[in-house]
């Protein structure tokens, strides 16, 4: 094993996965999980900024109380396309398909995921799905909201719901195959000594998210098939005019789409566990609690879906049960937050960029999670459902949580993926700008929602303007925070300092191999002899 000593300037390894092969074919036909991760990275970056453009247009419209920039129809399409792009084509694949794909097999000491061809196939399926979604976009967009509620979606709107539903259905299979691959890999491909109790917490988190992917996604698939059939052939399962029941659609939709938010947040929590531990230079506090809280979130996540339907006419008693269970999800989430905090306590905390993002995550996720409890409370929900309070809550968890974790994780593993460091000063600046911009965008929305501003309208009463202007101003700051990393990451590919094997002095198998890793990840099959996160005793030597 080669050990990079900090006094010697690290050099790039002669042979690694990026220069193993050249040409477009070597990328498009690759079965290397690391290259597939890069393919995903490029694709979802596109969708992130596309979804961002829609968000920018929404915020531009909401600068003034009158609906003056867009017709309400156009506005409906904007928020639908924003939601669909961000959820199905960015958030769900973000950490699992990019960071997970790249790091998870290396963390286990495996040469690849269990099914490399299926892994590549999942990317192609994702691209086909993306083409359907773009086809729906250029042929006029879809205006139902990302939730596709029936009978609006099946009987009333005139936009391309079927094309979009097929796109999301196909994207679901990409997600199923990623989840399946992760589960089999974790079970069957661990290196000698890598017991379940030694799995990095990032692996536990992705494993839990994979469980949701394989169990939840098929249900949205069948639901969207029924929506498409109903729209195409009027089969009437969800349309009350034809004897069907729209509330059944909501049950089936949220049976997936609520757990789906845990598909989105769990892998992000995994990133935070790695980053917080590394930059606190301490063993993680409560390893097994963090590991099992991931699984607990996955399990609880499946039995809380009807909290989206408190005002949809479900029975009071089931609403009470779902409310109670929704409060229960807060327990494993809080377990994580407390354990991260306890890990930092008395640690040698340093504030490198990934750590800044991790700290932002802990604060913003806590706000997002606690406001979720407001919404889980039956009486409160009647008042604030379908208002900007929900929008703010969701974005605190998804942007303040997941996007922050994803960008933080990207910084953390960027030297591993490319062999080069990003520039630290602009990166810290970008983290700060993102944090300020994010809070300026979304905190006013809590107040707006509490005051009663409904979501999904392109105009609003004049007394809401000040807060909306603040929010739109924040969105432009946030955009700068997101564009900066794009610029300096690209810059670092050529001009970044050579990182060396282990620039963070971190533990974990991924830091024992070269940066970038060779095609088969390790020159020798690693053997794990220590507990995970053995920080403190011997610097950065969890493995021999």
């Amino acid at each position: 094993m080669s050990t990079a000593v900090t006094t010697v300037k690290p050099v790039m390894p002669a042979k690694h996965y990026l220069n193993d092969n050249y040409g477009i074919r070597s990328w498009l036909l690759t079965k290397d999980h690391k290259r597939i991760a890069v393919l995903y990275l490029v694709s979802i970056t596109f969708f992130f900024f596309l979804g961002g453009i829609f968000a920018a247009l929404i915020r531009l419209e909401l600068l003034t109380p009158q609906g003056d920039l867009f017709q309400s129809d156009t506005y409906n399409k904007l928020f639908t396309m924003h939601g669909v792009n961000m959820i199905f084509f960015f958030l769900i694949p973000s950490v699992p398909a990019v960071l997970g794909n790249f790091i998870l097999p290396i963390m286990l000491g495996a040469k690849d995921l269990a099914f490399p061809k299926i892994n590549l196939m999942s990317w192609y399926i994702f691209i086909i799905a993306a083409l359907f979604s773009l086809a729906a976009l250029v042929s006029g967009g879809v205006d139902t909201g990302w939730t596709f509620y029936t009978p609006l979606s099946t009987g009333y709107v005139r936009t391309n719901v079927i094309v979009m539903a097929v796109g999301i259905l196909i994207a679901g299979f990409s997600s199923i195959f990623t989840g399946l691959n992760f589960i089999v890999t974790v079970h069957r491909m661990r290196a000698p000594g890598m017991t379940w109790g030694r799995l990095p917490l990032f692996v536990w988190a992705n494993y839990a998210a994979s469980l949701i992917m394989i169990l939840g996604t098929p249900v949205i698939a069948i639901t969207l098939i029924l929506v498409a059939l109903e729209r195409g052939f009027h089969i009437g399962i969800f349309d009350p005019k034809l004897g069907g029941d729209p509330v059944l659609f909501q049950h089936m939709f949220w049976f997936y789409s609520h757990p789906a938010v845990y598909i989105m947040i769990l892998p992000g929590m995994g990133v935070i566990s790695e980053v917080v531990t590394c930059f606190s230079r301490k063993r993680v506090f409560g390893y097994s609690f963090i590991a099992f809280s991931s699984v607990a979130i996955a399990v609880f996540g499946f039995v809380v879906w009807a909290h989206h339907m408190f005002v949809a006419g479900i029975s009071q008693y089931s609403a009470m049960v779902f409310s109670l269970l929704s409060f229960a999800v807060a327990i494993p989430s809080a377990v994580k937050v407390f354990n991260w905090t306890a890990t930092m306590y008395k640690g040698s905390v340093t504030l490198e960029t990934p750590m800044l993002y991790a700290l932002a995550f802990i604060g913003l996720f806590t706000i997002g999670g606690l406001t979720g409890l407001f919404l889980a409370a039956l009486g409160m929900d009647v008042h604030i459902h379908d208002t900007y309070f929900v929008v703010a809550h969701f974005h605190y968890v998804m942007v303040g949580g997941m996007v922050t974790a994803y960008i933080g994780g990207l910084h953390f593993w960027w030297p591993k993926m490319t062999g080069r460091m990003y520039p630290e000063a602009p990166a810290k600046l970008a983290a700060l700008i993102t944090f300020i911009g994010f809070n300026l965008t979304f905190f006013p929305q809590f107040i707006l929602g509490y005051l009663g501003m409904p979501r999904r309208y392109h105009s609003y009463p004049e007394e809401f303007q000040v807060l909306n202007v603040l929010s739109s101003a924040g969105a432009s700051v946030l955009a700068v925070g997101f564009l900066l990393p794009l610029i300096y990451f690209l810059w670092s590919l050529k001009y970044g300092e050579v990182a060396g094997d282990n620039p963070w002095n971190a533990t974990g198998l991924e830091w024992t191999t070269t940066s970038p890793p060779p095609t088969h990840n390790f020159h020798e099959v690693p053997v794990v002899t220590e507990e995970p996160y053995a920080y403190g005793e011997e610097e950065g030597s969890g493995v021999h």
Partner: protein
Amino acid sequence: MVKRRDLVSTNQTTTTEHHPALAHHFDNMEQQQGASTFGMWVFMLTEIMMFGGLFAAYLIYRLKYYDAFKAGSTSISVSWGFANTLVLIASSLTMALAVWAAQRGDRKKQVTFLILTMILGAVFLGVKAKEYKDKWEECHIPGHVIGKGFNTWGGCDVNNPKLGNIADEMRDPKEHGDPSIPEVSAIQTAKQTEIFFSFYFAMTGLHAFHMVIGLGLLTWLTLRARSGEFGPAYYTPVELGGLYWHFVDIVWIYLFPLLYLISRHQHHG
């Protein structure tokens, strides 16, 4: 818990013979087979969830509109459904025999049993097509578009001699709804029966789609079996293809009673 793994460089392996089907990232055939089989079971779990969503929706409506579901069920042919059930069970047997032949490396038997399985699968789909055609002629296609409406309320010819017994059922106010308002209850039952047929086509259609995929898989397996790829050391693809085929059969074993056998005795007793 931990798979044994020898400490050798990535280009070598300690197994005495390196099987050509061993992928580079596995240490040995056992690990590869274990991973593939486990992956197939996980995949079938996703299939169960997918059909499960449909079954759950079916059950809800069956409880809600029981009379209409009963009426719809009596209009489809038990004999054809039963015959198809037998065909599928037979195809599961030939599939199992194909796996057995692959394990013994008997090339000829593998190919024979795989082709037999495909023939039985094709027979099943043929019967299914015939049943769909009957429904088409009886105006039992749900929706206003492809079936030109359902029974009496969408412009379909009520006097069609082939029209099933649902129309009679609907005209019989003793059994369905309030006799004082026979038309209203007839229209409601018609709508509810239409939902039964929506499920009938969605569930059997999704099942038939899986059969078509299965036939594709079997064709691929037959070609590989013919070139003698499978033997005692390596038969995982046949085994997993078999798992898939049995799974699709089992789905039908549930579909048959759910769709064809709702309270039959009350009508034929």
